């Protein structure tokens, strides 16, 4: 709280805005769910949601789409945090869909299950009849996201139509939708990567260990550092070397790169993020490197 005057810090303003969005959706939608991956943005989003409804519990379940290629530290964190909140966790599994023959996996080298998340997400939304799904996406992450509304409408195929978005004015959100349609809601739209880290520090939020510097065997591929795991073994000619690294983003193991870092505390991460000259996705996400409009194309198909 401010000591003098009726002023709020920029983090307090962003938090107040996000709380308002959570409450609007809870009030106007029948069956919301919150996408919780155990990544830093969803951890921050979950804390804001907790504040929005306190002292009551969250009025909606958590939802995770598990590619089967997630970092074990992150899955453990996801389960621990949902249990702590007493929240229901719904998991949509890409592996189960592959095993059941509903999806065919691209097994060529370099392929990831990123694309396969979309149909599993859409099926899970349909099965649970979710009409609003909170996501932790931020507008500073990517160009297509910079143009996406806080309430992002999806048709019955889960598609985003960037040319046909509703104007979004003041803090008046229009949640009208028809049966079968749903919205993705991004309460952290106006937060930056640095805001996320400052909030983690301010709230003393626990986050998975892989966000802090640790030693890991990595290979360098296409200018990115990839962890050596059973899913990502070194290819011919590649040499695995131990390095001090941390993850700036946490996604699928097969397409999330690490950055060299010595940042072992939240304060050191904040200093590093403030000084970095490369965007979070540019540094670490092979899935965004496909083309200039890779994110827009995936979002049109129903991606997060």
């Amino acid at each position, binding site marked *: 709280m401010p000591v003098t005057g009726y002023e709020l810090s920029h983090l307090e303003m962003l938090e107040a805005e996000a709380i308002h969005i959570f409450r609007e959706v809870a009030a106007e939608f029948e069956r919301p769910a919150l996408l919780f991956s155990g990544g830093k943005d969803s951890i921050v989003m979950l804390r804001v949601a907790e504040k929005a409804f306190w002292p009551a519990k969250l009025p909606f379940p958590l939802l995770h789409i598990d590619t089967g290629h997630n970092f074990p530290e992150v899955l453990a964190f996801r389960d621990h945090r949902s249990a702590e909140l007493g929240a229901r966790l719904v998991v949509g599994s890409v592996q189960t869909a592959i095993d059941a023959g509903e999806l065919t996996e691209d097994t060529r080298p370099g392929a990831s299950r990123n694309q396969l998340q979309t149909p599993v997400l859409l099926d899970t939304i349909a099965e649970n009849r979710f009409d609003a799904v909170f996501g932790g996406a931020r507008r500073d992450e990517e160009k297509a996201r910079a143009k996406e509304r806080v309430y992002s409408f999806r048709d019955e195929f889960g598609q985003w139509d960037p040319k046909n978005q509703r*104007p979004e004015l003041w803090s008046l959100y229009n949640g009208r939708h028809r049966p079968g349609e749903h919205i993705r809601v991004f309460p952290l739209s106006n937060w930056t990567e640095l805001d996320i880290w400052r909030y983690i520090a301010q709230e003393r939020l626990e986050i998975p260990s892989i966000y802090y510097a640790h030693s890991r065997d990595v290979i360098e591929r296409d200018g990115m550092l990839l962890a050596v795991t059973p899913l990502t073994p070194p290819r011919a000619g590649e040499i695995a070397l131990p390095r001090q690294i941390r993850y700036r983003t946490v996604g699928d193991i097969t397409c999330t790169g690490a950055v060299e870092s010595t940042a072992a505390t939240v304060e050191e991460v904040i200093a590093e993020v403030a000084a970095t000259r490369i965007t979070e996705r540019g540094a670490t996400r092979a899935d965004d490197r496909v083309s200039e*409009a890779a994110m827009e194309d995936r979002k049109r198909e129903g991606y997060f």
Partner: protein
Amino acid sequence: MTELLRVATAGSVDDGKSTLIGRLLYDTKSLFSDQLAAVERTSRERGDGYVDLALLTDGLRAEREQGITIDVAYRYFATPRRSFILADTPGHVQYTRNMVTGASTADLALLLVDARKGVLEQTRRHAFLASLLRVPHMVLCVNKMDLVDFDREVFEKIKEDFRRFATKLEIVDVTTIPISALSGDNVVSRSPSTPWYDGSSLLHHLEELHIASDRNLIDVRFPVQWVVRPRTDELHDYRGYAGQVAGGVLKPGDDVIVLPSGLSTRVAGIDSFDGPISEAFPPMSVTVRLEDDLDVSRGDMIARPNNQPTVGQDLQLMVSWMADAPLRRRARIGIKHTTRSVRAMVTDVSYRVDIDTLHRDESVETLGLNDIGRIALRTTSPLCYDPYRRNRTTGSVLLIDESTGATLGAGMIL
């Protein structure tokens, strides 16, 4: 403590807007090397003769292909003193609705004029929309000063032209700054090329501008958004009213009235996850407990007994119409006002404003896409509202198509 400032800008590539945004991002270290490399690569592939910084914000495939800005883009930059959210919108008349959207939440409107061209129709349009949306501060950047040899006369003439136009609008605070976005004069630091200019650089002005008193801290307005009922053994009787303070300062012990029912009670306490709150003010999101067990639900408004909003069903509005199908008298539409949704009928279309000349055309019977005009509405049940000029939150409404759910327009209560 860093504060947040929301800036809206509008304009075309020609007046140097993208260059200015690029420079603000670059000089505050908010532009990343991989973003810049991607822009350089695309400019080269398209065969542009220069690095087109508009590509930083033009993220959609259609925009990149056509080389135009379609929508509102949000950009973020920060200095040690403030964090900035910049709503960047195209300036052409066909994007009026986008400009209105960007201006709706802005603390400051940033206008650009080319020093060689002076105040144009587009500048006047942006100024009018910013004043209509009651953006509290405005900065007029006279850009490309390097192309007029930093001539003071040129600057003073543009400043005077704009001042004369602005007297017709309700603009409270205008600052005019001579800049060159391309060479950086007066953008981040004061330029030696304009010794005759004794004001601040643009960034310094954005950092130092006093915004705390822009909010209404007088009239207590608390739209109830959500009723918090934990339904647990230890909190069996807890009943809290969650919402975002829309005006005034609310304190425990305050006498309050719940509208539209008119029931009186007192604030028992103001709760938050982080502990009890002694004073709640805009835009805080809090939970209010009341002393008496009243029937209070979403859509109700909490105010002070001696300072109440208007409770009524007949509204006079200035609207920005955003739909292809025209707005007509007797149309039935949906209204969202604070946390209350009602239906309404359009009882009158009074006039359309020509946003370039400010002329009022009273002969019109409808408002078309991107038109601004005055209408009257009657709602099916009462709203608790204030004039928009008094409170941007309790004075604004969305107009909604009841059958498709589409947002048709934005209304500002007179």
